[in-house]
């Protein structure tokens, strides 16, 4: 009996594969109804299925396949031409066959459904008069294959009586039909067996690490040589076994043309799909994990992204929309892009919906960058579908996509241009089980950080001068970019020996789409580690991705970079607003650090101007100030220098802030601080309350020009500081002074 079971299993596996190929062929045929080779291969596939299942006793399947075969033989012989109705009918045939196979697989029998409707449909489709000569070809579906082509298994079977006259295994022809796979050199292996092999290799890697550690201190040359050899062999074995689990992403993508066709038809749209990078290889478990997310993304693009043909032609686009999928390796990751040339994502609509659903407040919406708004589509409970269709739009789609991708350590990102299209990008690390990692020590404990998330290592010797704080968040300026810092000891509540002001080791990591710096006590080295999953009790702790056994036999925890980032709030929306506002969505005067002169205006109000606009800082006695036609001036270096009183023009309360006023009490022997600016060949003086400091900052304004003469505000040394527009101010002064009649 085992012979038959194995045979059925083999039949099922082969048939599923063939059905997938059928789907592809049908869709391709729809675009090109004259492709004879496709017709031939389709016919052979159905014929094979019919024959085999007849031999195995699946009569229901056989009768369904038989009706399809009749139709297909006429198509193959050119008597009928493929059209939309026929394609749909044949796809229905394929689905019915798949369904019956499913019953056979799960229940062992063909299921209780009666496929009379499908058969009727096919018969009706077949009932069309031939397009060429009335001489109908005799329904001889396939050439008789001599008995010796039937493989040995059939001989061993005890029920030859079940076999009909038609041969069962079209030996050589069947191989041709499955020619897309690497026939002959390939062998089927159970995935569980491969998993076991992977585990064993993992254990071997651990043992190898331990051997290397212990022998590194030995002097025995023979031992060292052997250990080295063991090392090389293990590495190669590891690479080899990992390769066995790699499959081309094309295997997954093969299903997509059919899905796109079905969805497009259901939505009355025209869409074609193009794919690049089918041969890009992924581990089988990753393929499984992204199957559903990718399917959803595609359905979404066709349903919501691509417009109807009418809309498209009105917009000047081709009626047929394009869905472009691309996969490639980059930097230890696999990148998968899905691009459509549809209507793009309207961020205003997205924000409005998010406010409606209570996901964000209107304040937050106002402050959001384009990128943040686009990423709202991944928020739980979000959907902008005007009508919820069967296809997508039930509001559970994109956030599930994101969760599933993140579960395997990947990230998903969206870019869009309204009217032009949208691109979704999924990035996934290449392997899961054995990864290179950076080992660090902090708080007396060792931790491993997956190298795939590692960007760089920075060591700063004097933390007090390089680490700044904005709104309580420590930041480090890395080549012009603000890097939020996370202190590992603090996050994990470890004993911390370091104190502020000493050196710091910063591990720059990428968590999701954000970068942050992890401050640790000590950086050890990189090693290959085997990732062991966490026990149930630990799975709740989001900062740990797993555990591993180090070379010395002790256990070390593996940090989950994304989890760490989320916990420390460097990727939460709230925090992004702070850092984002400071670095991305705001206007910046330049990317370089500038020297600014910081001064107080009155009553604690602060302003700053670029040091480059300052000629000199002068301190003059109040008594030297003179009046000239409504403007205060002072004699300066042989010139009459007009003065502008900053507090008066820009102060919060001009009335009381006047430095220069006629109050005699205030006109004591006070000194007045003047910032001298040279404009063309004239001097202009800005009167301020007090010069505070000269600071070096990358000037980042947080608001656009608030008023005339002020460029905006920035946070300098933790204080809100207005940046004076020196040019405008100077012009104001000079116009006034020049406009005065002599």
């Amino acid at each position, binding site marked *: 009996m085992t012979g038959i079971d194995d045979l059925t299993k083999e039949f099922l596996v082969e048939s599923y594969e063939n059905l997938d190929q059928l789907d592809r062929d049908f869709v391709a045929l729809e675009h090109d109804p004259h492709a004879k080779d496709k017709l031939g291969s389709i016919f052979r596939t159905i014929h094979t299925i019919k024959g085999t299942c007849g031999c195995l006793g699946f009569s229901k399947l056989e009768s369904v396949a038989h009706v399809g075969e009749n139709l297909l033989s006429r198509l193959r012989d050119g008597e009928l031409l493929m059209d939309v109705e026929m394609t749909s009918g044949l796809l229905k045939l394929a689905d019915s066959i798949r369904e019956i196979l499913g019953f056979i697989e799960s229940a062992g029998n063909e299921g209780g459904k009666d496929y009379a409707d499908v058969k009727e449909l096919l018969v009706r489709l077949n009932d069309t008069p031939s397009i060429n000569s009335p001489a109908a070809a005799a329904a001889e579906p396939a050439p008789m294959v001599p008995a010796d082509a039937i493989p040995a298994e059939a001989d061993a079977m005890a029920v030859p009586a079940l076999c009909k006259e038609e041969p069962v295994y079209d030996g050589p022809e069947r191989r041709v039909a499955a020619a897309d796979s690497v026939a002959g050199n390939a062998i089927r292996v159970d995935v569980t067996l491969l998993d076991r092999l992977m585990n064993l290799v993992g254990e071997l890697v651990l043992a190898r690490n331990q051997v290397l550690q212990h022998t590194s201190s030995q002097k025995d040359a023979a031992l060292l040589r052997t250990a080295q050899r063991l090392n090389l062999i293990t590495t190669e074995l590891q690479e080899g076994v990992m390769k066995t689990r790699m499959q081309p992403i094309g295997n997954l993508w093969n299903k997509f043309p059919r899905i796109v066709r079905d969805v497009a038809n259901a939505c009355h749209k025209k869409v074609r799909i193009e794919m690049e990078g089918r041969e890009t290889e992924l581990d089988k478990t990753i393929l499984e994990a992204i199957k559903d997310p990718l399917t959803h993304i595609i359905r979404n693009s066709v349903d919501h992204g691509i417009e109807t043909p009418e809309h498209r032609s009105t917009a000047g686009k081709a009626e047929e929309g394009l869905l472009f999928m691309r996969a490639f390796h980059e930097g230890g990751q696999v990148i998968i892009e899905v691009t459509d040339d549809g209507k793009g994502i309207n961020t205003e609509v997205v924000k409005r919906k998010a406010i409606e659903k209570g996901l964000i407040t209107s304040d937050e919406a106002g402050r959001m960058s384009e990128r943040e708004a686009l990423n709202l589509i991944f928020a739980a409970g979000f959907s902008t579908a005007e009508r919820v269709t069967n296809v997508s739009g039930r509001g559970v789609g994109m956030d599930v996509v994101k969760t599933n991708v993140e579960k395997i350590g990947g990230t998903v990102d969206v870019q869009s241009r309204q009217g032009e299209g949208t691109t979704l990008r999924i990035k996934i690390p290449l392997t899961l089980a054995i990864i290179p990692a950076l080992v660090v020590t902090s708080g007396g*404990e060792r931790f491993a950080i997956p190298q795939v998330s590692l960007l760089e290592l920075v060591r700063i010797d004097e933390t007090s001068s390089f680490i700044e704080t904005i709104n309580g968040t420590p930041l480090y300026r890395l080549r012009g970019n603000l890097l939020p810092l996370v202190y590992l000891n603090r996050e994990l509540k470890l004993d911390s020996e370091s104190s502020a002001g000493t050196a710091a080791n910063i591990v720059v990591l990428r968590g999701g789409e954000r970068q942050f710096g992890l401050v640790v006590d000590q950086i050890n080295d990189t090693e290959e580690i085997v990732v*062991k999953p966490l026990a*149930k*009790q*630990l799975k*709740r702790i989001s900062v740990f991705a797993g555990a591993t056994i180090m070379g010395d036999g002790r*256990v070390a925890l593996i940090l989950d970079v994304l989890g760490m980032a989320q916990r420390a709030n460097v990727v939460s929306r709230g925090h992004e607003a702070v850092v984002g506002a400071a670095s991305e969505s705001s206007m910046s005067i330049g990317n370089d650090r500038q020297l600014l002169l910081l001064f107080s205006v009155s009553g604690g109000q602060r302003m700053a101007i670029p040091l480059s606009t300052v000629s000199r800082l002068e301190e003059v006695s109040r008594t030297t100030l003179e009046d000239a036609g409504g403007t205060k001036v002072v004699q300066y270096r042989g010139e009459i220098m007009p003065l502008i009183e900053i507090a008066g023009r820009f102060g919060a309360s001009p009335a009381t802030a006047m430095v220069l006023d006629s109050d005699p009490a205030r006109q004591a022997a006070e000194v007045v601080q003047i910032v001298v600016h040279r404009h063309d060949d004239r001097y202009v003086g800005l009167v301020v309350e007090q010069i505070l400091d000269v600071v070096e900052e990358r000037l980042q304004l947080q608001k656009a020009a608030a008023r005339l003469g002020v460029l905006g505000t920035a946070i300098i040394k933790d204080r809100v500081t207005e940046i004076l527009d020196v040019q405008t101010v100077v012009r104001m002064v000079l116009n006034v002074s020049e406009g005065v009649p002599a």
Partner: protein
Amino acid sequence: MSDSKQYCSFYVGDLFIGVDVCVVQEMIRYQEMTRVPLAPIELRGLINLRGQIVTAIDLRRRLQLAARSEGELPMNVVVRTSDGVVSLLVDEIGDVLSVDVSDFEEPPDTLVGVSRELIEGVYKLKDQLLLVVDPDKAADLSALTV
């Protein structure tokens, strides 16, 4: 002829505790543990058991008893729970005992709190009581705060 069951016994503080012998994988001496930051305090750490990473749960803390004194190293009772292999940290390991099922009694109503959750019942032995603990419940830390 009455039924008998076998229990692996050990001491945790003043308590004499037994666990069904069928679920005990091994009982071994102190193993070096790696602390897990942010875990509940009952979870003392992770140990390397012949290549397998096993969670170690301190029964003293789990039963809310006073902490072990400095320098006293716990022993490991490695059990198979429904969620995998777990090591229970105990003070001293006792013998494997055969007990008479008829000597079993439900825990008294006066027993409250954590002990009530973990202790399935009591065997009246000649001169002491054997508390029966369910390893699955002992290893279940989901209700505890992190």
